[in-house]
């Protein structure tokens, strides 16, 4: 197993290098000029040029790439072109709310979706199954921002149970941080509940048809034991895959939710940095997201072996 993990981590290095080259070239092709944005709307062309030179943006592409790669290999992500704050500090400021929001969303989703999917598979014609599947369609089709505004209107503006927007950092207390993220996590979890419930139902349905489940029933094993020992562990692979991919996607792609709830997370940092052409920040973020996908995929692969004894590396 250790060899497998190390091999996978080494294999990630060329992937990350390829991502770095691709992102750098892509950003150099995107129209827009950070120097013009920094100088402001009313700067003269000469002033914009002076800023461009001061930032080194007038240098040839290859020279800029080599200099950036050199710094990256030393672990230096550079400075934001705008705030002149180290990129690593900007990311560190934003990673906490995104990480907690992603974890809360996945926990809520798993807590609801797995039991619902399970029940829906066991009693495919029951009320729970019908409601779950109808709810799943709704969860897929209603945009997150609609759910978000509905929750804000009722639970924040109406009942005043939660704040309308903003994030309280962990330094102000764990309860404050969690409380400020309840509504965004619920809004986001609708989609993931739908997704995980459907996958759980399909995977469990497939396992229920297997001979060993029928044998377990014939042996007179209690339903609870059949579910925990035989059904769930054998149906785990697709469920874990979806949860893993969902978690990775949440870490990098909750721009709308972060915007609606004004949460200073990685999604908004990415969107803002792209809009203002803050190249060092965008490059570092995309590398980070690529790294997250590599690690999450590796974790998912390891979990396969934990849940399914047939899988060994």
């Amino acid at each position, binding site marked *: 197993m250790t060899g497998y993990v190390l091999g996978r981590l080494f294999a990630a290095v060329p992937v990350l290098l390829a991502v770095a080259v691709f992102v750098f070239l892509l950003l150099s092709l995107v129209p827009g000029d950070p120097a013009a944005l*920094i100088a402001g709307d009313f700067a*003269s062309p000469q002033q914009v040029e002076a800023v461009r030179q001061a930032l080194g943006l007038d240098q040839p592409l290859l020279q800029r790439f080599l200099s950036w790669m050199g710094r990256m290999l030393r672990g230096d992500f550079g400075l934001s072109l705008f705030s002149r704050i180290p990129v690593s500090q900007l990311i560190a400021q934003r990673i906490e709310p995104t990480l907690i929001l992603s974890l809360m969303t996945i926990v809520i989703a798993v807590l609801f979706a797995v039991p619902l999917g399970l029940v829906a598979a066991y009693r495919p014609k029951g009320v729970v199954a019908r409601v779950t599947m109808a709810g799943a369609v709704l969860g897929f089709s209603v945009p997150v921002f609609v759910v978000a505004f509905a929750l804000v209107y009722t639970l924040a503006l109406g009942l005043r149970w939660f704040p309308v927007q*903003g994030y309280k950092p962990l330094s102000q207390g764990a309860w404050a941080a969690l409380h400020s993220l309840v509504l965004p996590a619920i809004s986001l979890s609708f989609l993931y509940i739908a997704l995980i419930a459907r996958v759980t139902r399909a995977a469990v349905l497939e396992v229920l048809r297997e001979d060993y489940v029928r044998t377990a029933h014939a042996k007179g094993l209690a339903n609870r034991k059949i579910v925990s020992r035989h059904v769930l562990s054998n149906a785990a692979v697709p469920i874990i895959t979806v949860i893993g991919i969902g978690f990775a996607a949440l870490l990098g792609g909750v721009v709308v939710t972060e915007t609606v709830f004004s949460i200073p997370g990685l999604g908004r940092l990415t969107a803002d940095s792209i809009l203002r052409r803050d190249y060092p920040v965008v490059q570092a973020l995309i590398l980070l997201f690529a790294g997250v996908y590599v690690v999450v995929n590796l974790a998912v692969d390891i979990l396969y072996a934990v849940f399914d004894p047939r899988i060994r590396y």
Partner: protein
Amino acid sequence: MKRPNILLAASFAAGFLGAMSPAFAETVLKIRPFGDLKQIDPVITSDYMVRNHGYMVYDTLFSLDEKLAARPQMLETWTTSSDQLTYTFTLRGGLAFSDGKPVTSDDAVASLKRWWQRDGLGQQLAAISDGLTVRDDKTFELKLKRPWGLVIEALSKPSSNVPFIMPKAIAATPADTAITDPTGSGPFIMKKDEWVPGSRVVYVKNPAYKPRQEPASGLAGGKLAKVDRVEWHYIPDAQTALNALQAGEIDIFEEVPPDFLPTLAGNPDIKTMPQDTLGMQMVFRMNTSKPPFDNQKVRQAIRYMIDQEKFARAYVSDPALYKNCPSFFMCSSPYFTDEGWVKPDIEKAKKLIAESGYDGTPVVVLHATESGPTNTFSLVAEQLMRQIGLKVEPQAMDWGTLVGRRSSKEAVDKGGWSLFMSGPTGADMFEPVGHLGLRANCDKAWFGWPCDEQIEKLRGEFAFAADDEQKKKIAGDLQKRAVDYVPYWPAAQLYLVRAVRSDLDGILKAAVPVYWNISRK
């Protein structure tokens, strides 16, 4: 066994409650600014958010009061020699930066020398200057090559770039390299460790600040920080900001979209007021260096095409929030004139296009979609241009792409452009010399590069005018020439609105939004 558990629980609860309640009642003002503070150097950029940040942490030598009159701010006195060639400035006693060091003439001179490398009006002052020197700790002197009537106007400039005074060591930073240290001598101190770009900026009261004794008026007078802490929370979504204001999570909401105003009208906890006293001018900016707008007749057709009422009402329905201002200068400017102005007449516009020899070259519109007024005004412009016979090619983009694209001087079929809409604040469209849209010095002019010797000659003369009467006459002549040449055309004058919680008191009417003098009732 139970006793220790109870004690443990009690001590935990006490600790928890202790952590929940602040050691003292800190007064906090929470603002949703109109934009994000992306950087902190008010000299390198003309970004209005950075200008507003500058007013929090820096002070100025002169400031404009509520009636837009220049008044000394950091200065005790100032004198002019009889030949109008030497200005002597004396700083007030007791001024200090937030790090405790006193403000000296060295700081003022270094700050002005950095500022005048970047600012348009400052550059003119630098060109006419024969030396800016320190006489002693409190006194410095500006010598001119010839009398120039805009010295005080330049030093009291309310909008970008504002001549803020910084410590000499910081002002020594090259003018095209951004400063990173926000130390200033203004009423507030920026808490840089709490700055989260894209989300939050925090300021606390500057204990070293020495306000003037006069009451606050506009940007002038005593700048009293009446709250301990000011927090700018950048909430990108306007609906979320509105919800936050209604829930009392923020106190002030800048640049409220006009369609939200009816929602706020019936709320007794919230009042609305103009964001600044000058408003903004929407600018129809043409690329005069490339077809079709290199053709003066096509540009003259645009004059007749633009009906300010139509443009403004597409964005806002309340007549109090816009003005038809038949002038290149803001209606509130002392240099306002309607001389030579033409009335909108779509038939005349069509006729001029027909006479112009227009060959069907597409008008490439750089259309920024994410900004409220800019988006609406671009849509109206596109429709009207089609109506008068121009071929229009709108290109939707974000503002970041627009500012990159507009520096291109290529033809439209090679990535160039013909038109964009912008909305500079009134303070930047106030008088002929600092007026960005009227600058017509070819390659050195603002994007669009109008090139007209007569306009430049009149702008130059304005700076040397002997008195106000002569200045007004030159402004009138300049307007007549600009109406004929058409370097751009004003598409309306808008007033931005901010919504504030009703329990706030002391919000100042000023040329730009400022946040001292505010307290809770």
